[in-house]
């Protein structure tokens, strides 16, 4: 009996070991790809096989990055953009869910608003940017509004769809237990839709970056979007790439944070 147990334990250890080895190989190849991209970028640029003026090079970006950190401008721009993006992300998600709740609450309102939602969703929202900036005056508010407007309707539509798809038998159970419509929403509709809400959060991370960067293009006073448009105007593409890399890192961190929230909210 004991021998048998030892054998199972041994096999289990082997299995865990093989998982570890596989994970190590995955990480190894990921690192190789990373190094390959950046070293070939550097190499091609130094050999002038690609135009260093347009494509810059990792070393130039690195030096510029250190310079911008030392004179403090990178931090100022980064802070502004990050604040605007997080605000835009939170506001659009909260408002999107509230709109979805209203649509679910009143089938009449949802029927009336249906064509307007479709039109508004189909329209390229960034085209509204100039109007927003003039209406709200250039600054934080209009940039955040730009980030919100781009994702709020799609959030509302996706979350409303998931509200409607909750198994009606759960509502039947609640109704027989004497639940009000608000209690149905709180006990069944909302928790059953958490997975969908989380996945729209993930989409919204990307969308709010788009909205905010475009907003900064237009306002052109501060932020990573401003760095990109400024670099483009003075033909300093090293600056453009620096801003892009910083955005990539920040967006990834935000995405990971949403993933963390997902594991917290959805007990498995």
């Amino acid at each position, binding site marked *: 009996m004991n021998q048998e147990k030892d054998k199972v334990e041994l096999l289990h250890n082997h299995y865990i070991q093989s998982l570890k080895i596989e994970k190590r190989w995955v990480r190894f190849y990921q690192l190789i790809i990373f190094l390959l991209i950046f070293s070939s970028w550097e190499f091609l640029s130094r050999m002038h096989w690609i135009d260093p003026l347009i494509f810059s090079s990792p070393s130039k970006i690195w030096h510029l990055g250190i310079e911008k950190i030392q004179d403090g401008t990178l931090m100022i721009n980064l802070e502004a953009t990050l604040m605007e993006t997080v605000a835009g992300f939170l506001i659009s998600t909260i408002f999107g869910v509230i709109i979805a709740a209203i649509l679910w609450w009143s089938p009449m309102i949802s029927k009336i608003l249906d064509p307007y939602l479709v039109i508004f969703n189909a329209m390229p929202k960034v085209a509204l940017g100039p109007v927003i900036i003039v209406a709200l005056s250039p600054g934080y508010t209009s940039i955040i509004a730009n980030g919100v407007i781009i994702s709020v309707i799609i959030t509302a539509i996706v979350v409303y769809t998931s509200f409607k798809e909750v*198994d009606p*038998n*759960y509502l*039947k*159970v*609640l*109704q*027989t*237990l*004497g*639940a009000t419509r608000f*209690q149905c929403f709180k*006990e*069944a509709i909302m*928790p*059953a839709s*958490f997975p969908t809400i989380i996945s729209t959060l993930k989409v919204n991370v990307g969308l709010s970056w788009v909205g905010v960067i475009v907003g900064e293009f237009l306002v052109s006073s501060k932020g990573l979007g401003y760095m990109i448009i400024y670099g483009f105007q003075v033909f300093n593409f090293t600056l453009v790439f620096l801003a892009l890399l910083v955005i990539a890192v920040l967006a990834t961190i935000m995405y990971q944070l949403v993933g963390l929230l997902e594991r917290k909210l959805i*007990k498995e």
Partner: protein
Amino acid sequence: MSFLTVQDVHHTYFTKDTAVTALSNISLTIEEGEFISFLGPSGCGKTTLLSIISSLLKPTQGTVLLENKPVSTSKNEIGYMLQQDYLFPWKTIEENVLLGLKLSKQLTEETKTTALSLLHQIGLQGVEKQLPKQLSGGMRQRVALVRTLATGPKLLMLDEPFSALDYQTKLKLEDLVSRTLDEFGKTAILVTHDIGEAIAMSDRVYLFASNPGRIHKIFSMPEELRILSPFEARNHEAYTSIFQMIWKELESLEPGKG
């Protein structure tokens, strides 16, 4: 006056293209403590009638009275158990069981203790903090029964509650449900398409015909079957003859078939 009175109920479902009469001319009365079965082929409006009695659905015509009051005014007096357990997967067993009390704001230490002791009585110990998916199908359906009983309903609706279970679990649960309802002196209506189940569990069986849904015949179960548990009733000699009788009636409802 009877405990439950259903009077001249008609119900028609409307869609853009069709008007389907699901129930026509349904009248019946049920006394307190009785166990009634609605038996019939699928599509004969059994579940519709159950929904009407529990006031989830307003009939196009007719009235339903529970203790001489319209059912639409009674709250928490009718419990409903569905084909599947529909326990909320994100709530623990305890939270699921106490849901009805919480929704009707009756949750006190006392009602909580009563509800949880019900869980013990039905043979589920130490599962309070577990999630529904950690339990087997039969256990989950038992939790669903406790959830239904926790608010103390006077009338219980059982909408094919055993049909999604394997045969052995089903037989055991039939006994358990029957015993529990007897202990609490509950009145119950069972919807089923299983003839044996209807005979073994009930005092009276209403046989429904379809197109439109109507009561075709009423069978009263003999005293010797009523006092037995469902499992014992299935082995009683009277069981087979009643089964044959109902079977023939069902056959006669389907002209040109079988």
